[in-house]
C-alpha cells in the first residue's frame, strides 16, 4: 500500500514486470482525496466561479461564464484550463472563436492581458 506524502499533487507508480512473463495487474484502486486535502490541492492551483443561468429551456440558448482565479502555483506559459460538461449530449453548440454572430461563440479574457489559445 502506498500513501502519497502530504501536499503531493500527484504520484506515479512504476510497476515492474519480468520480460516474457504475462502479468495481470488487478485491484488497483486510488482512494479519493479527503475533502480538506482536495481543498488544499485545489487552493494551490486556483478556484473557479461559474455564472450560469438557473435554468435554460431545452433546445434554447444560454451564456455560461466561468471565471478562473489562479492559486499559489499560478498558471505558467503552456498551462491550460479544460472545460468539461457533466453529460455526454453532443447536441450542444460546438464552441467556436471565428464568428461572434453564430451559436457557440466563445471568448477568453485574462486579467493580465495574456494571449490564450482556444
Amino acid at each position, binding site marked *: 500500500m502506498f500513501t502519497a506524502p502530504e501536499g503531493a*499533487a500527484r504520484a506515479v507508480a512504476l510497476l515492474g514486470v519480468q520480460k516474457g512473463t504475462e502479468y495481470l495487474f488487478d485491484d488497483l484502486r486510488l482512494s479519493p482525496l479527503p475533502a480538506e486535502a482536495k481543498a488544499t490541492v485545489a487552493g494551490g*492551483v*486556483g478556484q*473557479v466561479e*461559474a455564472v*450560469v*443561468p*438557473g435554468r*435554460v*429551456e*431545452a*433546445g*434554447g*440558448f444560454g*451564456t*455560461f*461564464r*466561468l*471565471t*478562473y*482565479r*489562479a492559486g499559489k502555483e*499560478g*498558471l*505558467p*506559459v*503552456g*498551462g*491550460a*484550463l*479544460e*472545460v*468539461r*460538461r*457533466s*453529460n*455526454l*449530449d*453532443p*447536441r*450542444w*453548440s460546438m*464552441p467556436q472563436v471565428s*464568428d*461572434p454572430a*453564430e*451559436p*457557440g*461563440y*466563445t*471568448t*477568453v*479574457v*485574462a*486579467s493580465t*492581458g*495574456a*494571449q*490564450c*489559445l482556444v
Partner: protein
Amino acid sequence: MPCVTRVTVLYPPLAEGDTGVVTYGDAAGGGPGVQVQPKAERDVRFVVGVEGDRDGRALDLPDTRGFDVVPGPFAVLGLLTPVVAEAGKPFPVTLEARDRSGNVVPAVEGAVSLTAEGGDLKTDARRAFGAGGTGQASGKVTLTRTGVRLLKATCNGVAAEQSVVVSRSAQVADGAKPKATAYQDGNTYVLGNAHVRLLVPRNDFGYGVAFLEAERGDQWKRVGAFPSLGELRVGAQGKPAHRMPVWLSEAKPGSATDAAQLVLSGAVEAAGVQWDLSVLCVLSDGAKHVDLHCTATPKADAKLRAFYAPPFYAGDGSFGAAKATALFPGLEYRTADEVSSGDYGIVPPFSDRQVPHPYKVTMPMVAVADGDVCAAVFWDPDQKWDGVHACPSACFASPERWENRASHLLALFAPAELDGLPENARELPEPRAVVAGKPLRACLESASSGRRLGGRSSR
C-alpha cells in the same frame, strides 16, 4: 466527461490572483449564445480542470454551480393508446403535454377534449391537465364499433390524433388443449396447445387482428396483439408511405403430425396492384411459440417501400408500456424505467437503435418481459425475403413511443440496410420495384414463456 474546450495560456503566465474568464456562448457580438441540448435534464454542470505542468493531466477544481435544462412551452399533445382494442371493453388512454423536443411539460393547465368519429366513445379519462401536475392525464376509453377508429384530442388549441384497431372480442372457452389444435370457436379461430394460443377473431374487415395468450396457472393471460397479419407500405418518394394492413378473408384450420396449423389467405390492393397474401401459422404440441410464415405475391409489377411480417405489440391489452426487462441482443438490455434507444451511456445519434443494421444483431431475437410472462420474436437471419436477399430488418421499440403506443413493438420487415434502407428507417425512402408473380416471404416465431429474461423461471 466530454471536453467542451481547452484554453492554453501563451504569454504572459498567470500569477496568484490573476483571472481568466471563459465565456461560452458570448452574446456580446450579437450572437445567440450556446444552443443547449433538446432533452430536459436536471443539474447539468461545467467542470474546470487545471493543467499547470503540461503533462496532459488536469486537476479538477471543485464543482461549479449546476443548472437545469427545462422543458419548453407546451406545443405537442401526445395521445398514447394500445394498438388494438376490443369492442365494448375499456382500454387505457394517456394524454401527455410535450414541448417541441418531446419533453413532458408538467406545468400545463387546460381542459382536454377527447372524441372519436362515430360518436360511440365513452370515457372516464380525466378531462384536464391540472396545476402542479405531471403533464399527463389518463383514464379509460370504450369504443363499441369495430374497424380502424380515429381518436382526436385537443388541449389549449393543440390537437392530437391516434388510430386504434377495434376488433370483436375473442371469446373462447378457457380450457387448454393438451396437444396442438386448430379449431373455430364462435367467431374466433384458435391455434393452441397446453402452453400458448393464438386467437384470430373474424371482423367486418376480415381476419387480421390476433391475440397471443400464454397459459398461467389454469388461466390464459394476454401477452400481446397483432393489429394485422402484415403490412405493405407503398407510395411515392418524398412522402410518408401509405400503410396497407394485411387483413384477409379466408381462414382454414388444419393439422399435421405433432402440430396444428391455421392458414389465413386473401388479397389486398395496394397502389393499384392486387397482392395475393397468405399467412401460415404453425404450432407444435409442446411449443411455446407460434411459427408465422407470410407470403405476398403481386399480380402485376409493383413498387414497394416495405413489407412487414405480422407486427407484434407485446403488452398490448396486457401489461401495456410497463416492463421488467427488454432485450435486443448485441444492442440493448433495458430494465423497468429505461426506454429503448435511450441515451444511457451512448450519445445521439448512436443511441437510436430501433432498426439497426442486421449485422449488429448478435442473436436474431427481440424480447420483453413483465411479471410472469416473456414475449419474444425470433427469426432466421438467413431467410431470403425476395428469394435473393437475406437478413431482414428487425424493429425494436420498447415502448413504441415513436408512434405513441402504450405497448412494445417487436417487428420484422424487408428490406434491410444491406438493400438500401437507411439505418433506423422503417421504410425505403423511394419505392423498390417488385416483379409480378415473384413472392416476398418473411418468417418469424412469436413466443411466450414463463421464464423471465435473465432470471429464474417463474413456473
